[in-house]
């Protein structure tokens, strides 16, 4: 097992990634802040800790796979990949621009190091199952992580795939729900209630773990719990806050698919700076 990174370091990285997300969205002039900010810790937990990957050798057959099924969260993935050294950090400023490798929704034809193209919701879990079945066939010890949006769970294909994962006992599949409680038309509860969500997945024969999706200890504990589960796929229901980290974006539906303008960006960056300072003084005390 990998040694766990220092949680304060991860928190610092989370602030930097949030900053990158906001800067790239402001530059792009469009995109999805809410659902990018809500999955920051979940992706950091993978790329900085659990996922077996190597930015210097991105096509290694034995790598774990990360499938971003909720493609609109790609600013977060791009920021994480850039900080991990998959491409130059400045490239994030090209998001959504003509000729950029960083398409508005992840496109493998433009950025081949991505595992898949996504953006049309509902398709990532089936792809994850295919990868996992092929790995079992080849006796390849890899794991497939698939990040799903909560609104995305309205898609019927997700539940077709959920049946496939458990039917084929795909214990090398881990799906994570970024349960930030909002979708475009309103709160998830009001648009199409998902509850009882944990019970649903359990009824589909999944091992289910419920966590606070912004708490690094809970995230790493959940990822480690996967190592002990056999014969079943695992779902991590991560309770998150849409727009997490920027006070005026948190739980505010207006920020689902609207990019911050300069003045919003300045305000948001100031908040992140304050948070970073608080974190530093806390760190200094220890």
């Amino acid at each position: 097992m990998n040694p766990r990174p220092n949680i304060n370091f991860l928190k610092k990285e989370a602030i930097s990634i949030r900053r990158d997300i906001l800067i790239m969205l402001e530059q792009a002039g469009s995109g999805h802040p809410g659902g990018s900010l809500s999955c920051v810790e979940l992706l950091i937990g993978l790329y900085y800790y659990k996922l077996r990957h190597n930015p210097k050798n991105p096509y290694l057959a034995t790598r774990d796979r990360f499938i971003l099924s909720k493609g609109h969260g790609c600013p977060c993935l791009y920021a994480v990949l850039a900080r991990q050294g998959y491409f130059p950090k400045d490239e994030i400023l090209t998001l959504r621009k003509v000729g950029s490798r960083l398409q508005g929704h992840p496109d493998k034809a433009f950025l081949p190091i991505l595992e898949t193209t996504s953006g049309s919701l509902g398709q990532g879990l089936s792809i994850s199952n295919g990868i996992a079945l092929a790995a079992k066939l080849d006796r390849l010890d890899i794991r497939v992580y698939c990040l799903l949006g909560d609104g995305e769970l309205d898609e019927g294909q997700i539940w077709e795939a959920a049946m496939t994962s458990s039917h084929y006992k795909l214990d090398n599949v881990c799906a994570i729900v970024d349960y930030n409680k909002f979708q475009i038309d309103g709160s998830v509860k009001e648009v199409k209630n998902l509850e009882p969500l944990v019970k649903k997945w359990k009824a589909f024969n999944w091992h289910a773990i419920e966590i606070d999706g912004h708490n690094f200890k809970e995230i790493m504990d959940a990822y480690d719990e996967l190592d002990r589960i056999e014969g079943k796929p695992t779902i991590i229901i991560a309770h998150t806050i849409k727009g997490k980290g920027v006070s005026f974006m948190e739980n505010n539906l207006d920020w689902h698919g609207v990019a911050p303008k300069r003045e919003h960006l300045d305000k948001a960056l100031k908040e992140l700076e304050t948070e970073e300072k608080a974190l530093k003084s806390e760190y200094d005390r220890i």
Partner: protein
Amino acid sequence: MTESKPTRDGFGEALVELGRKNPDVVVLSADLTSSTRANYFMEVFPERFFKMGVAEQDMIGTAAGFALMGKVPFACTFGIFATGKTWEQLRVSVCSMKLNVKLAGSHGGITVGADGATHQALEEITLMRALSNMTILIPCDYIEAKKATLAAYSFAGPVYLRLGKETVPIVTREDDPFEIGKANILREGSDLTIIACGIMVAEALRAADELEKKGIGIKVINLHTIKPIDNKTIIDAAKHTGAILTAEEHTVMGGLGGAVAEVVVRNYPVPMDIVGVNDTFGQSGKPHELVKLYNLTYENLIERVKLLIRRKQGFRSKY
């Protein structure tokens, strides 16, 4: 009497042959395993066969995952479900990444018969043509179905294979060439060209035989690959025969006829007509009754040839 066999049988047998030679072949089936003849593979290679249940969209995504891992998945179901229920999955999860997924849609066309309109796929060519990176193969008989299946495996990228339920006369030979994107000229003639695919190839040949007796020379082209289309063979036919009739067991909206018309109008406009199902749904009945009812017979081709040759003569005198 020529021998008759369904194209799905050729597909099923070729799958087994592929499985023997290539460990990377896997087969997925959406609960229509015997109907698509995927059961031939299942019986020999159960460990590489995956039942997906009645879940076509999930089957396509799973196939995409297999392809991402270097496997060559063949996903099998009825044509209408293979292309209709899954169109957007094919677009994003397969074609946009140019993944090596092979889609086999059996029960193409009106000859599905008694099951009726819901099961008679009349729109697959139109739907699949609209997808960038998709290749469309429509074998005309059992022998060509085997070749098309083997060729689909060797070809890098998404392929749609349209197969039929009913027996069709075998009109090609084992040693005829089959190359994706290269149409086969089955007979020469100088008065008009019939470009056909699937079951209409045999009808076209029969129409040409009958017309020859009346002194009308028909060139017959088997356009087994609708996409990428063989521009050169079509343009040559337009130049040399001056009129083109297309024939397909499919809607006339955007199918084989549409594909050929696009080539003709852009390169060498000549009078054309399109035989197919005229923008309507099918119905239950025996295949031989339905092909008559929907004018998919050599008799109808003969009538349309005569009308088209008259138009060609008018066209020639005008220009």
